[in-house]
Structures are given as structure tokens and as C-alpha cells.
């Protein structure tokens, strides 16, 4: 069924269709309407799930961790300061190898107080062992949420769906929503490597020899490495079932014959693609490699860009170095041009991208440049 949904309502709809059994979250803008909608669904009896009200984000993730470790499909959502408040549990859930899905509506970090998007919050999860995905549009946020449960449960790692504040979370788009039976056919029953249940007297989080920690991190590193194939497989079979296939860890846009390649992630990719179309019409061989998954990092895909002029457009900055995507991409292919833009939700539209890419193609950008330059000088 085609229906008009905001990004947040689309995520809620996907969680419902995935038959999540336990939901807990603490409200924070711009995430709030996801769990508001889910609470409404539970209250109306449309969704057979337990909705747990909690006093903080730390407790929200702790509650869904408990439910998930007991074998239930569980979901939470947060943003920005909420993520930072639950940060201890972010690592605990991953290290405990507990599959669950969290929506991360990206929002900058204060001060100053600001509810608009950049990717700084999401990227603090980088090293934690979560599978980190990023949606470009409402449909992709919906699809990633359903795929997230399957991928997470297959590799015993938590999964986050990143979607930009307001640009996706509160913007309505037409979404193709499959019916329950179709989702049931595609999404298997919940599975996980272990459960903690009454009658099964096991402990988790107990003291172990130091080697146990090392061995567990090694196994985790292997699991997230293996998740590349799982993600690709899920993308393919989802495509066969629902007609939408994105390309796995990255999406390639007009890369055929491209000498100039832009690497970026998130909602603004749509505007950047429009700018690329305009420049292509003028004959400029430019394309995009859109990062759909930040972890596992698409290193093989990025490697294919060797020998091309690469511009990485970042919405997050690593203080004391460069843009976070910029440094990750340059770790694979060496020097790249890195533009920092849209920090704190500063609007970057099609015209901005067009001007930026023109400057890039005529080699007028600095290696590291905050966009637009005149504002920051």
C-alpha cells in the first residue's frame, strides 16, 4: 500500500510490521514521535507488544536489552543527548552480543541547544560494535528498520538505523508499505545465540579471565566482518521480495565513467544527486558513492574509487583532525578532499551542492574546507 508517512511514523510502522514485542524509550526531539506512534499502536491494540515507560535513555536501552536477552524482539529510539546518556548501555549491549534495533534520529550535540541534524551523535557509536546504517529517504528508513531485525539477529549484534532530524523524521513522503503477510514471509522468527530465561541458570557480565575479554572482542570483530555478506544478502532478498534493492553497504549513483566522485551519507544525498544530474547534463563526469553503512565500513567498495578525484562531504567533524567520513575514506584510498558542511543543521541545498561540486571539479576547494568558506573566515 502506498501511503504518506513521516520518517518517524515510517520507522514506527516498520517496527510494528516486524512484530517487535518490547518497546522502551525516553522522549527526545526529534525522535519522540516514533515511540509516541508505537505507544498509540500498543494502546489501540494494533501492536501486541509491551511498552515500558522509563525514566532515562540509559534505562530505555537497559530495558530493551533485558527483553532481547530473554528472547524478545525489542526496539528503542533516541537522538543526540539521549544517546550520550545511554552510552554505557550502547557498549554493553554490543559486547553482550544481543540483537536489537534502535532508531537514531541524528541531531547535533549542544551547546548551544539545537535540535537540528548533523551526524556527530550517530558517529560516537563508531567503535562500539553496532551495525550502523544511514537512510537517505523515508522509504529507506522504513526498509532499513525491517532489514535491521533480520541482520541483527543473524549476526548477534545490535543494529541502528540513522535518519536525519526533520529532513526525514518530520518530513512526509509517499512510502510503499507492504502488508503483514509479506513481511512475515521475509522476516524470519527471532533467533539469537543465547537467551537468559527462568529455569536456565546462567549469568552474564560476571568476572572472567582477561583472555575471555580479548577472545570475545576478536569474535565480535569477526562477526561484524561477516555481517557484510549478511547485509548484502538481506538487501538482495529484500529487493526480490519488495522490489527495492539499494546495493548493500553503499549505493552507487551515476558512477559510470565518473572521474569525480562524491562520498557522503544521509538525507542530503538526495539534493546532492540533483546537483550531480545538473552537472552531468553539462557533461561533467561526476557521480556519487553513498555510504549506507558506516559500520561495517565499506572498505572494498571505497577501494574501487582509487585513481579518481574524491570529495568527501561530512556532516560531522573529529576535533583535532578532519571530517569523520573524510578520515575513514582517506584511510582506504589516501588523500581526499574533505568538505565540512551542514553542521548543526545548517541548510545545504541543491544550489549549494552544485557550487561545491563545480569548485571541486575545478580544483578550487582546499583539502579540508568548512563550507561555505566565507562564513568561516
Amino acid at each position, binding site marked *: 500500500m502506498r501511503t504518506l508517512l513521516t520518517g518517524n511514523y515510517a520507522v514506527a510502522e516498520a517496527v510494528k510490521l516486524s512484530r517487535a514485542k518490547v518497546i522502551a524509550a525516553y522522549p527526545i526531539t526529534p525522535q519522540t514521535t516514533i515511540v509516541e506512534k508505537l505507544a498509540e499502536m500498543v494502546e489501540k491494540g494494533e501492536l501486541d507488544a509491551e511498552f515500558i515507560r522509563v525514566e532515562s535513555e540509559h534505562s530505555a536501552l537497559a530495558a530493551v536489552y533485558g527483553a532481547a536477552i530473554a528472547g524478545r524482539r525489542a526496539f528503542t529510539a533516541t537522538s543526540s543527548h539521549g544517546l550520550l546518556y545511554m552510552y554505557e548501555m550502547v557498549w554493553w549491549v554490543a559486547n553482550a552480543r544481543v540483537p536489537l534495533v534502535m532508531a537514531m534520529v541524528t541531531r547535533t550535540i549542544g551547546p548551544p541547544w539545537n535540535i537540528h541534524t548533523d551526524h556527530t551523535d550517530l558517529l560516537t557509536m563508531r567503535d562500539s560494535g553496532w551495525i550502523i546504517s544511514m537512510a537517505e529517504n523515508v522509504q529507506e528508513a522504513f526498509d532499513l528498520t525491517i532489514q535491521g531485525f533480520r541482520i541483527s539477529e543473524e549476526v548477534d549484534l545490535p543494529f541502528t538505523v540513522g535518519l536525519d532530524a526533520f529532513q526525514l523524521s518530520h518530513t512526509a513522503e509517499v512510502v510503499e508499505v507492504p502488508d503483514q503477510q509479506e513481511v512475515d514471509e521475509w522476516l524470519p522468527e527471532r533467533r539469537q545465540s*543465547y537467551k537468559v530465561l527462568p529455569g536456565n541458570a546462567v*549469568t552474564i557480565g560476571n568476572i572472567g579471565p582477561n583472555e*575471555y575479554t580479548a577472545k570475545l572482542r576478536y569474535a565480535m570483530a569477526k562477526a561484524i566482518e561477516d555481517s557484510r555478506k549478511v547485509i548484502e544478502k538481506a538487501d538482495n532478498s529484500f529487493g526480490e521480495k519488495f522490489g527495492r534493492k539499494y546495493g548493500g553497504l553503499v549505493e552507487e549513483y551515476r558512477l559510470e565513467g565518473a572521474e569525480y566522485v562524491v562520498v557522503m551519507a544521509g538525507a542530503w544525498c538526495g539534493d546532492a544527486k540533483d546537483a550531480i544530474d545538473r552537472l552531468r547534463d553539462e557533461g561533467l563526469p561526476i557521480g556519487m558513492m553513498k555510504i549506507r553503512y558506516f559500520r561495517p565500513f565499506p572498505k572494498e567498495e571505497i577501494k574501487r574509487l582509487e585513481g579518481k578525484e574524491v570529495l568527501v562531504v561530512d556532516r560531522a567533524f573529529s576535533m583535532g583532525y578532519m571530517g569523520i567520513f573524510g578520515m575513514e575514506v582517506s584511510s582506504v584510498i589516501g588523500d581526499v578532499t574533505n568538505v565540512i558542511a551542514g553542521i548543526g543543521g545548517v541548510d545545504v541545498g541543491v544550489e549549494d551542492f552544485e557550487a561545491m561540486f563545480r569548485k571541486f571539479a575545478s580544483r578550487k576547494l582546499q583539502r579540508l574546507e568548512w563550507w561555505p568558506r566565507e562564513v568561516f573566515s
Partner: protein
Amino acid sequence: MSSWLEHLIAKSSEGSAGKTGLWRTFKPVHNVEKCNRCLLCLYYCPENVIKVYHHRFIIINYEYCKGCGICAEICPQDAIEMVEEEE
């Protein structure tokens, strides 16, 4: 079972953390004359080292008793005394 799982979760078993009785500085000593077999000590012992035999004999396993003193504290009959360990 996944090979990593054995490092993540633990099933409780006697002595899985070594002979923890070595940690003890005070030792609970049971006085069979004062004891009325209410068995509160058995339920409160966090290490599960107190056992009762034939509804009568209370045995403390000193191999694993850490000497926390909860049994002595909870005993309504003052039938458990904490005695300092000698070298």
C-alpha cells in the same frame, strides 16, 4: 553453541572462581546447642555454602565460605559466632 559463548555467559558451579575460602579473615562457627534449625542462615548465605543434613546438622563449607558474616548477623539465636582466623 557458538565458540565465543562460553566466554560470555557462565553457569554457576562449585569452585568456578577458585577456593574462595582463602579470602576469609573471620570464620563463622556454628553452635549446635543454641541452634533451633530455623535455617535462616542457609537462605541468607550469598555463597550457598551452608547445608543442612537430616534436618539437624548444619555444615558450613569452609573451602568456599568467604566469611562475610551475614549468617551470624541474621541468626535469631546468636548460634553463629565469627571467630578470627589464625595464620
